[in-house]
């Protein structure tokens, strides 16, 4: 069983959480009024797919129902740090 440390609830089974993809600026939505097709393509389809450390948003759906940011290694699933100030999707 994989444990994820929720900043509010502590370590809980990963099945309680929803994975929301990469966090931060990379996932930021461009302004639809001014975005070019290339910017839309980047926003919609081109995401980092690292084999290593990844900073991502998680949602504790079966717990406190809050978002947070976690640093996870995508090969070992080790979680290095979580922060409560995660961005909403």
């Amino acid at each position, binding site marked *: 069983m994989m444990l994820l440390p929720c900043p509010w609830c502590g370590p809980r089974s990963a099945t309680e959480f929803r994975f929301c993809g990469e966090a931060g600026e990379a996932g930021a939505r461009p302004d639809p009024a001014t975005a070019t097709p290339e910017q839309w393509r980047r926003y919609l389809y*081109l*995401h980092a797919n690292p084999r290593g450390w990844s900073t991502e948003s998680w949602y504790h759906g079966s717990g406190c129902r809050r978002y947070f940011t976690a640093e996870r290694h995508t*090969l070992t699933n080790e979680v290095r740090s979580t922060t409560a100030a995660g961005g909403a999707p």
Partner: protein
Amino acid sequence: MFATSNGNGHRRNGNGTRPRGYSAWDLVRHGITGSDWPRAWREHDLRDHYDVVIIGGGVHGLAAAHYLAQNHGITDVAVLDRSWIGGGGSGRNTSILRSNYLTPDGVRFYDRSVKLYEHLAADLNFNVMFSQRGHLTLAHNDASLRTMRWRTEVNKLQGVDSEVIDADEVKKLVPYLDTSSDTRYPILGALYHPPGGIVRHDAVVWGYARAADAHGVHIHQKTEVTGIDVERGRVTGVQTSRGRIATGTVLNATAGWSSLISDMAGVAMPVQTFPLQAAVTEPVKPFLDTVVVSGTLHVYVSQTDRGELVFGASVDPFASYSIRGSLEFSEGIAGHVLELMPALSRMRLLRQWAGLCDMTPDYSPIMGPTEVEGFYVDVGWGTYGFKAGPVSGEAMADCIAAGRPPEIISAFGLDRFLAGRLVGEKGAAAVGH
């Protein structure tokens, strides 16, 4: 576009003669004498130049090498694999073949693959044990039935045998299914696809490897690609753990590493890598002679020729390169299988494993040239790569020989994500939705 020529612009490796085929007489002779069989493919020193370098020694890469040699006479080809051939997705899938997809582009493409599979054992002189036992996708709600009616009409228009049947007919085909109405998800009907079935996936890989080797293709196992050299927008070579290879043509035919390899050439891929887990039970007597799939329960079941039941699921709920199995998976799949076939409650799981799926936004593959000249991709194979192995190899061989994609894969180009021409197959390609 190639340096030297033999009439069609390509050099040949060796003399290109086929080894003696396997035969019943051989079987008797080896049985009596107990002598070793000849190796199915050879080992070679890594050369410093090849006309075409294929990264990934799975069914896609080996099939592409085979068809490059057989259909186009291009035999100066190297297939590189970081571990052993068929050790990735080609050896980890649940070996289900079918062509009952949702879009005309998808149906045409996968139907060509089933057709190639039907003759593959004879074409390769290698028994791939293709068993066209019929494929059932169960409907547990009205929405599923609606999509299935849509699929079956698209299938019929493309000449693919496919029909929606009711629960009584399902019961006749699979007596062990619980088709009563007092289950959590009662079975309302199914999409029945008689040409679908299962195949021995290792044999397909080995058959293509042997055939490609006979044409003079070099298969290099334990050869990891560490970089791709690009000069002024075109490929000039591949860096490997065994040295550099100069080449003008590279095909990325990897799964699980497709975005990492493409990154080496500076080509961004709209791919997210997810593990998919599968499991197999102890062998029992034959009782299940169709493939049974339930999208609602996220499970597919078939019985191998050895009698084991093979279970597969949807991809794991978060992106990862980890191929460790999880307890949640085996608990979940056991529960779901028992909802379908309660009589299996005493069966024991033998083992479970995971493979890596490169998921694309529209559940269709990415095939063809890229913005880097000479760098071709055959990637994004999500949960449906194995069944497309032969047609992908054939189409990518055409694409490399002609320098542009053939009609059958023209809808699957990388440029569709900029143009907004997605080929939505989620309703037919996956069980997890």
